[in-house]
């Protein structure tokens, strides 16, 4: 189980490769489900030039850890990985990576979906978009 909040650009596929190599015995899992959220250069009909991602230091990490523990208890999975960007983000950059390792595909998929759905609806992150004519918070 790993939860990371980072202000640096990260490559989701390299993170997956690294995590898989170091933490999980090969041959023990049969299924990996992942979700990667990436910054688009458009939203709700507008061109978006950049984004700022605010979080609640301490609470966000705590929430994501509890979420991961819940997934590990509810589904027959071995490992979870969550990485989320904060700060200034440019189009094309990765915002979030969620992954689950399991023996079989159904728990891998369900736990992965649970993690990203709960993260999106409850984890304390807030996006502010920079448009050509100013900024807007997405929580309105």
């Amino acid at each position: 189980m790993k939860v990371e909040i980072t202000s640096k650009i990260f490559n989701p596929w390299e993170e997956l490769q690294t995590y898989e190599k170091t933490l999980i015995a090969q041959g023990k899992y049969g299924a990996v489900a992942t979700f990667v959220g990436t910054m688009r250069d458009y939203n709700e009909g507008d061109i978006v030039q950049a984004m700022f991602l605010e979080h609640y230091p301490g609470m966000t990490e705590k929430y994501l850890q509890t979420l991961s523990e819940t997934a590990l208890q509810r589904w027959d999975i071995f490992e979870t990985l969550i990485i989320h960007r904060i700060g200034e983000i440019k189009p094309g950059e990765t915002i979030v990576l969620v992954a689950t390792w399991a023996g079989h595909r159904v728990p891998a998929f369900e736990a992965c979906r649970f993690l990203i759905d709960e993260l999106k609806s409850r984890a304390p992150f807030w996006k502010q978009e920079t448009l050509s004519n100013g900024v807007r918070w997405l929580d309105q």
Partner: protein
Amino acid sequence: MAITIKFFASLREQVGKSEVQIELSRFKFFKEKLKPRTDSLTVGEVWAQVCDNSPLPIHILMAVNKEYSKQDTRVQDGDEVAFFPPVTGG
């Protein structure tokens, strides 16, 4: 000891402050309008105190000591209370 109150994102900009510290003993609201209580307020009462008795908007989320709370959760001296808008991460 004091209570720390934090605001995030668009709410922080609307309220015009990111963090406030208040002493329980100095609550005007507490002293004038409520029966004496020596050790706690609710999250809703903290909002009223810090935001000039304005109503707590229905979409605003609350946390005490970095865990989601409700409006009637009790706050102790030393606690951290946070108010923030709907989350939009992921």
